[in-house]
């Protein structure tokens, strides 16, 4: 049995309050979407969010801000926005988003009428769309699900307030006795089943539509189609070509997933792979860097697919199905994690890619802020990398000797070039004493080959130090790494790798540090590698004297050396993750797999062909025009004979004929027009009537206000005369028209003087 409950209706004031609340909510949701973009405007975002939240709880506050503040705010905002755009050059997106953010904040803190509410919705929509396009994040789905009902609700409430006779006038004293609790209670009372039902149906419809949008937006990579939409990301400091101690270790504390890898079908998951990203050959004053001479070997190529020289012993297979697909999260690094030599690298669309053939590295030219997809075919995980033993005419690497850099002179590293950099050790007695002593303990006076030395050195380091992320390095004169080496403190991968490198270099063995990821977990749900930020790692590559750099990982817990037996002996073979986190992450990879489309190159090729063809045509045209112009010039310069005059006469005739033709058309057009009208052809857009109509409306509006009898410099009856003339032009018969131009001119003049 249903009991008739008296229907509660919100008063106009309450509707207005509801509008305010919904608007606030809408702004907050859209601010949330923006929070996922890397914009360096966290402070602004926080200020905006907090202030909007506060005004939702205490809606009376904005009324207490003096009007002068808002008057001053507008020019200040304009200046701020212009400056922001100026300083953020050449980026457009971040200042644009900041601008919208500022505008949203201003709109949310002011009492709004209908117009302002509409602006707010539009601004918020802009934010949501832009963040959806740029982040490609799965949360976008949730955000749009929240945004849509908020926006719909706001529109609905605006409609309700507008349908009131009082229109969009803000009721005075609206917030004087406002009580949030009471307001919420009233709002809940108003919700009846029918309203909720309608809302639910509408919402469902919107969900369907927005899911369609959600699924389709990523298909059109707007950010790639429109160059300025490329939001540049920022790399983590541990993954740039210059790192200080602790940079990689810092990443290790981050548990989020950095890289996901789909393996080729039929391939077994490699156990404990090393995802090689950056090679740092130079060490100076506690920082490992990629030396300038090595960096100079970076070559930039622009294409969608890059085909490598085949590694020896393998065969290039066109359309190989042996493809690894990488999904590198945005803002990690511009270097691409790779496990070994490969045959081709392919992106979703044309990309600028930097290859370093010397160090066997690949990377994009700028850090992507969104997920970067790439596909590598025929890649074999390897423990060693082919070296270029003689580089740029220098001595063979095997014959090079250790050099010592004076830590006091900052320009020291510039003196040496790659590959000499892999044999540079910080000089000075304090350093050398410690290092030499350690080498003595490792070798026991013997001369060891690179492999043997590596095994012993790693053993030595592990016997001296444990593993810890918390590092306490004792004070002293020597280099930081050397001091640590001398102590028995535990350390992290960077210190192990660094120490090993210095030891090996002093022993005359070329060594370099490599950073990247090590290992990762296997998702038990969707079968892919999940590599988290905490898998970030640093290890070494040692030159074996025979043309190969082999991997040595001195950090405790890794294999003893890079031989396969040791790999098998690893205690943690392949970690299979079946946690909830892995489940949610697998949703993400499903999503990525859907977005990824590596075969979209056809359109792009077509576009580039068009571009080339266009450029060619332009240059041909240019040549042609230049040719003609030259010919014309010559013709003028040559002595004038009879044929010249004939031609000139001919030209004049042609011009005259053209002129007459135009005049003729000009004469006859109005007549044709009138006749057409007479025969019932409805030529709707008579421009004179249209213009006269517009002026009549303006005159009429003036007439209704108060008839402007006295206008400076015009006789009083002038107004009425012009008005009558305009009426004739607008409503009179076409053939009785007075000349319209002077009338329009005078009418406009009159209206202008009145202003």
């Amino acid at each position, binding site marked *: 049995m249903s009991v008739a409950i008296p229907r509660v209706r919100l008063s106009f004031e309450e509707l207005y309050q509801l509008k305010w609340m919904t608007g606030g909510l809408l702004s907050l949701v859209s601010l949330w979407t923006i929070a996922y973009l890397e914009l360096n405007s966290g402070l602004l975002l926080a200020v905006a969010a907090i202030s909007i939240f506060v005004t939702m709880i205490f809606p009376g506050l904005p009324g207490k801000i003096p009007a002068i503040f808002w008057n001053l705010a507008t020019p200040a905002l304009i200046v701020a926005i212009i400056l922001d755009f100026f300083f953020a050059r050449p980026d457009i997106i971040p200042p644009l988003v900041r601008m919208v953010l500022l505008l949203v904040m201003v709109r949310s803190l002011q009492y709004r009428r209908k117009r302002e509410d509409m602006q707010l919705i539009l601004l918020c929509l802009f934010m949501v769309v832009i963040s959806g396009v740029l982040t490609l994040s799965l949360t976008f789905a949730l955000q749009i699900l929240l945004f849509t009902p908020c926006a719909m609700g706001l529109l609905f409430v605006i409609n309700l307030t507008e349908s009131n006779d009082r229109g969009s006038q803000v009721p005075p004293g609206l917030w004087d006795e406002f009580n949030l609790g009471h307001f919420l209670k009233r709002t809940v009372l108003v919700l009846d089943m029918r309203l909720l039902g309608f809302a639910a149906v509408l919402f469902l419809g919107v969900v369907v539509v927005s899911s369609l949008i959600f699924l389709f937006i990523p298909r059109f990579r707007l950010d790639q189609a429109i160059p300025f939409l490329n939001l540049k990301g920022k790399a983590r400091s541990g993954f740039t070509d210059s790192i200080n101690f602790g940079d990689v270790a810092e990443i290790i504390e981050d548990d989020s997933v950095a890289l996901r890898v789909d393996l080729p079908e039929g391939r077994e998951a490699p156990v404990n792979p090393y995802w090689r990203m950056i090679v740092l050959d130079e060490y100076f004053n506690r920082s490992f860097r990629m030396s300038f001479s090595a960096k100079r070997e970076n070559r930039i190529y622009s294409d969608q697919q890059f085909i490598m020289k085949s590694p020896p012993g393998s065969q290039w297979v066109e359309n190989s199905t042996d493809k690894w697909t990488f999904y590198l999260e945005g803002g990690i690094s511009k270097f691409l994690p790779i496990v070994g030599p490969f045959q081709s690298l392919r992106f979703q669309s044309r990309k600028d890619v930097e290859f370093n053939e010397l160090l066997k590295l690949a990377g994009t030219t700028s850090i992507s802020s969104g997920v970067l997809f790439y596909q590598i075919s025929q890649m074999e995980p390897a423990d060693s990398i082919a070296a270029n033993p003689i580089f740029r005419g220098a001595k063979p690497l095997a014959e090079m000797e250790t050099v010592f850099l004076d830590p006091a002179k900052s320009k020291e590293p510039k003196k040496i070039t790659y590959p000499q950099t892999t044999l540079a050790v910080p000089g000075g007695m304090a350093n050398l004493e410690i290092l030499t002593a350690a080498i003595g303990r490792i070798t026991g006076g013997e001369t060891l080959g690179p492999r043997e030395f590596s095994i012993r050195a790693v053993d030595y380091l592990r016997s001296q130090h444990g593993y810890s992320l918390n590092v306490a390095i004792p004070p002293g004169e020597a280099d930081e790494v050397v001091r640590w080496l001398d102590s028995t403190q535990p350390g992290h991968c960077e210190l192990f790798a660094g120490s090993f490198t210095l030891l090996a270099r002093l022993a005359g063995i070329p060594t370099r540090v490599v950073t990247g990821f090590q290992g990762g977990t296997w998702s038990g749900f969707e079968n892919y590698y999940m590599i988290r930020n905490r898998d970030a790692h640093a290890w070494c590559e040692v030159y074996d004297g025979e043309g190969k750099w082999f991997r040595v990982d001195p950090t405790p817990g890794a294999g003893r050396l890079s031989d396969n037996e040791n790999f098998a002996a690893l205690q943690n073979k392949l970690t299979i993750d079946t946690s909830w986190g892995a489940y949610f992450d697998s949703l993400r990879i499903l999503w990525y797999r859907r977005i990824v489309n590596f075969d979209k190159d056809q359109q792009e090729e077509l576009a580039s062909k068009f571009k080339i063809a266009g450029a060619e045509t332009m240059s041909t045209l240019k040549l042609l025009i230049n040719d003609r112009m030259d010919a014309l010039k010559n013709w003028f310069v040559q002595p004038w004979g009879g044929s010249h005059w004939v031609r000139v006469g001919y030209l004049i005739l042609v011009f005259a004929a053209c002129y007459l033709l135009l005049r003729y058309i000009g004469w006859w057009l109005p007549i044709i027009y009138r006749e057409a009208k*007479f025969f019932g052809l409805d030529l709707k857009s008579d421009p004179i009537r249209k213009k006269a109509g517009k002026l009549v*409306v303006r005159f009429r509006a003036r007439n209704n206000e108060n008839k402007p009898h006295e206008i400076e410099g015009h006789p009083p009856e002038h107004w009425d005369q012009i008005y009558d003339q305009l*009426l*004739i032009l*607008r*409503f009179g*018969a076409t*053939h*009785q028209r007075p000349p319209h131009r002077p009338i329009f001119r005078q009418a406009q003049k009159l209206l202008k003087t009145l202003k």
Partner: protein
Amino acid sequence: MSESVKPIPAPKIKNTLDQLKANIGRVIKGKDDVIDQVVVCMLAGGHLLIEDLPGLGKTTLAYCLARSIDCSFSRVQFTSDLLPSDVIGVSVYDEQVKEFVFKRGPIFSNILLADEINRTTPKTQSALLEVMDRGKVSVDGQTYTAAAPFMVFATQNPVDFEGTFPLPESQMDRFLIRMQMGYPDYDKELEILQNSTLRYDSIRPEPVITRKEIQQMQQFVSQVFVEDSLMRYILNIVAKTREENEFRAGVSTRGSLSLKLAAQAAALANGRNFVIPEDITKVILPVFTHRLGLRRQTSDKLEEREIVKGILRKIIDSTPMPV
């Protein structure tokens, strides 16, 4: 192709009509808008239905108009025993000529005042209305042309319905304009009390226009230019009356034509040879109200009239004016 029509001397016509209005206004005081409507109706060659209480100057108005435009005037008091022949005339046998001779009735004057038209029988009413429509009288197979100009002033008492034969809608349609006189202002009435007598025969306004001039002016009315958008404006309003639920039926095509004609006349009376939207809105109420009947019952005609006016105003307000 050039149009070989005489240009309309609009300003001159306005002058003349202003004189005419002033002339009538000397007698009918404080009723300028009523006089305007009468002049528009006369100019358009239409007939007028005045619906008001007795004694408000309906007869005087008709008489003054007739005198001012130098026309003959006759008045017929319609009663329930009035016969068509009393209005039209009758054929009598002439002994000398030895045949029936038609004796013309009061309808053959230029301006006929049909007082209390709803008091007479439908038969007589229809006889009058036929003349109004066609401008011709048929008696005994002979057709006689009514006078030119010919204008009927019919009056009706909207309150007293005892023993009347209300005009059917089809016949109401034949009047171009229906209007009310209304009571005069206090001051104006005082003036009337001071200066006037009861009998209209004693009023002798001088003619200001000749009958011929009136006929010429009437010919110009149909040449007044109506721009396409204005025709659409008229049609839009008419369409809305047809969609309106409150009305029994919308305005007929004759109604739309009447509105156009009245608007043209109003434009000409204002010295223009083209119509502007204001001309239409000015005449729309008097032209349309009597053509529209309410679906629901009202206590009397006056109330119905007001409601219809209200709805019409709403329709006009909701129809965008052409600009």
